[in-house]
């Protein structure tokens, strides 16, 4: 019973939501609109579990004086700061919660993101080697598009027509490859979803009886 009921629920919901797609009627639209909200709400309750797990891990690190336990205190106080300010003073534009967000979270996220500029350089140096035909094609395409997107004067733009060529590569060969992948992905997704609905793929249930 501990496996059959969830499998049955999964099957039922899977079929209902598939059929729903084809029914424009108000009831069906009501279901879709609410289902989207509901699933988010379920996920939020799970987030509570996640947060508790995060706290547990770091509290353990501190109490057991594991390596770098000091930083676990930082993480815990970060969680506390967000939650206390958020529920204490609300999330208005000028609230301390938003200050935390705008001057601590956003800058750090943006900076992590910008690391890509460095890594994209090191990666292309490290890996763009004409080892095989494929590798050579990859790096040539990359170089053409890179040069095609910055102003390098008339030599490149009118002489070599790099901007035009890079546009063309993006629009045709690149698009063709993308479509091929996406069609395959679509089929893989459908068959996986199918296996889950039919209860063939049930590893999400986890172990135990």
């Amino acid at each position: 019973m501990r496996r059959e009921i969830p499998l049955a629920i999964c099957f039922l919901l899977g079929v209902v939501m598939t059929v729903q797609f084809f029914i424009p009627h108000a009831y069906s639209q009501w279901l879709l609109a609410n289902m989207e909200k509901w699933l988010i709400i379920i996920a939020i309750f799970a987030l509570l579990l996640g947060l508790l797990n995060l706290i547990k891990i770091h509290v353990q690190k501190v109490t057991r004086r594991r390596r770098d336990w000091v930083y676990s205190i930082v993480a815990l106080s970060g969680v506390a700061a967000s939650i206390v300010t958020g529920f204490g003073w609300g999330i208005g534009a000028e609230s301390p919660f938003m200050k935390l967000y705008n001057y601590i979270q956003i800058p750090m996220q943006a900076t992590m993101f910008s690391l890509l500029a460095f890594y994209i350089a090191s990666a292309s140096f490290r890996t763009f080697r004409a080892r095989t035909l494929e590798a050579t094609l990859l790096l040539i395409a990359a170089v053409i598009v890179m040069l095609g997107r910055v102003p390098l004067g008339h030599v490149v733009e009118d002489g070599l027509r790099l901007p035009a060529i890079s546009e063309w590569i993006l629009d045709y060969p690149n698009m063709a490859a993308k479509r091929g992948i996406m069609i395959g992905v679509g089929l893989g997704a459908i068959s996986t979803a199918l296996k889950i609905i039919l209860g063939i793929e049930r590893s999400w249930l986890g172990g135990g009886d």
Partner: protein
Amino acid sequence: MHISHDIWVWIAAALTLCIYSFLYKDNPFYKFAEHLLVGVSAGYLLVIDYYNNLLPNLITPVSKGMGVLLTTGQFTGSLAALVPGILGLIILTRMLPKVGWMSRWALGFYFGAYQGLIITGAMQANILAQVWGTFVKGGNPVFSVALFGDFFAHPGFGHIILAISGPLMIIGVICTLTYFFFSTEHKGIPGGVAKVGIVFLMIGFGASFGYTVMARVSLLIGRINFLLTDWLGLIR
């Protein structure tokens, strides 16, 4: 040059530098920033989810519905919000070893519903839309005999490109699909076609790699601008 007098700008700048220090090597400054970011962002999400989802989509409607139910004894649509509320509580049973298995009911609901959405979504966006897009570009077919006609009428680089681009797209899609055939070894004819597929894949990957560089560099420029302008005031 006038350095910022805003304490928050200084904090932001300091944390920015802490993250960049990771490029040299892992160090206490990065560890500090990393843990702070993890903590703050994890808490942030809970708070935001509460105000933007739980409050309007669960707490308010349920309390409203309950009010109506208790006063007039009528069931209203807003009570539907009880469904996710109960499922959410069931998820939480995972914390209790004895009844933890109950959380699977909620998971069944969650996974089932999404599989339904995925099947239709994938067929629509990944398969049909892509097949259609292989033939049609901006409302016109990707290629036609007429284009070849133009080429033979007045041969030229431009015309030949126009003429072959469409067919090239279709060939590319077919070859790429062949690469993803799992039932046959990559030998013989399918092997050859798959090889062409790989050629398309690699050109495509190279192109989108090069295409992304610009956007990534802009992000770095953005951060440096913040440091030089908002913080140090080196640039006006």
